[in-house]
């Protein structure tokens, strides 16, 4: 279970402090799939980073009683100057995984071929997403945090993600943020809308979607 209690996140900006998350509390149970909708800049990625533990809340606590992945996004988590293989090595080391076994899976899944020996900064967004996704599938987590990873890559990649994540790992918890509302509808059981620092929860997609649409078109 992941439990967020009274989480505030404030970013200092040139024009004063900006409250991105304003007193947010929720729990995510094992196996539960939560989809979060929100406008650009609503704080969705911030929420995911806080849940992952990569970033600390300004106040409040987030406790993790299950293993939680890093935010699976197409940016971040990689060192651009290192090759794809070196990044696999790095991540294998910090998560105590056997590197050799992982390489085969990553090569097979990403189909990156010789590009795996090139620096990640030369990769396209789709290639990065493939690498990020493949590496995160090596390490088994109880909860996966997915930040717009479905927004990039081709149809073949989406099919593979579908199989790895939603078929083979259908019993895991997931926190999914996406602008693709259909993707959220198809994969989540619970929904939330993030707006102006507040979060609202819905058990029906249609209600969450209506609220989200209302926010989107409000000036």
């Amino acid at each position, binding site marked *: 279970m992941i439990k967020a209690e009274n989480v505030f996140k404030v970013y200092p900006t040139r024009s004063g402090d900006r409250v991105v998350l304003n007193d947010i509390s929720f729990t995510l149970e094992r196996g539960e799939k939560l989809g979060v909708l929100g406008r650009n800049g609503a704080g969705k990625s911030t929420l995911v980073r806080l849940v992952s533990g*990569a970033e600390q809340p300004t106040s409040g606590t987030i406790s993790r009683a299950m293993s939680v992945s890093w935010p699976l996004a197409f940016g971040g988590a990689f060192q651009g*100057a290192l090759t794809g293989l*070196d990044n696999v*090595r790095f991540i294998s*080391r910090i*998560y105590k995984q056997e590197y050799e076994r992982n390489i085969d899976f990553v090569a097979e899944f990403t189909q990156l071929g010789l590009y795996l020996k090139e620096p990640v900064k030369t990769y396209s967004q789709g290639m990065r997403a493939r690498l990020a996704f493949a590496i995160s599938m090596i390490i088994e987590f109880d909860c996966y945090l997915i930040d717009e990873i479905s927004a990039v890559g081709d149809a073949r990649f989406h099919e593979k993600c579908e199989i790895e994540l939603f078929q083979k790992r259908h019993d895991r918890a997931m926190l999914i943020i996406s602008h693709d509302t259909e993707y959220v509808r198809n994969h989540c059981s619970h929904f939330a809308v993030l707006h102006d620092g507040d979060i609202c929860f819905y058990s029906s997609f249609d209600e969450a979607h209506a609220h989200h649409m209302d926010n989107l078109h409000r000036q």
Partner: protein
Amino acid sequence: MIQGRVIYALLMREVLTRYGRHNIGFLWLFVEPMLFTTGVTILWTLSKSAHGSSLPIVAFALTGYSSVLLWRNMPARCIGAIEPNLALMYHRNVKAIDIFLARLLLEAGGATISFVTLSVFYIYVGWLEPPEDLLTVVGGWLLLAWFGAAMAMFLGAVSEKSELIERFWHPASYIMFPLSGAAFIVDALPTAAQKFMLYVPMVSGVELVREGYFGDQVNSHYDIPYLVGWCIGLTLLALAQVAMIGRGITPE
């Protein structure tokens, strides 16, 4: 232990991004400081640099310049160390302190290997006598390393808050070099100046290394409690600053 794994992974990543797999690769880690020290040794030998003692110039340059590399390179590598690693901080086990520790281990290791290799080589070809008291050399070296590491971590953490640190470190380290005891021995200074010179913490470390190396040939001056006091103070400040910036880091 998680932190050990993370530091090892970061260390390997540093080696790869800094030295790559071209030509001699990671050997540059200590070949570079060796080239520096050798260059300075040659320069000082040719200019018959007056250092105010009867010590052979090779021995003088080796002990002095190696010490400078030890305390000067660590801060240089820790200032601005977080930014290029922000993407890796997506992994919650990767903390600011691990990034600093990995870089410190690498820098201290490089300077130490360079010092030891050159010492052994100079002793082998007969330019240098073996140290009179190895333990004293090691003690002085470790104190200098501690001082450099604590200063590096402190400056590295504060540099996340203010870019002024980076601007000031270059001139400051340049000015501190002649004051650090690398290019003179305290005994050669006027008695009145000796007392003030020992206020520079590095001087005690370098003098201790030289005492270990040359024994009775030199009359060394040092104040170990003063240097240790600096080390402890800087370490506490550094840890406090690192903990503070850790809370504010936003991964890329």
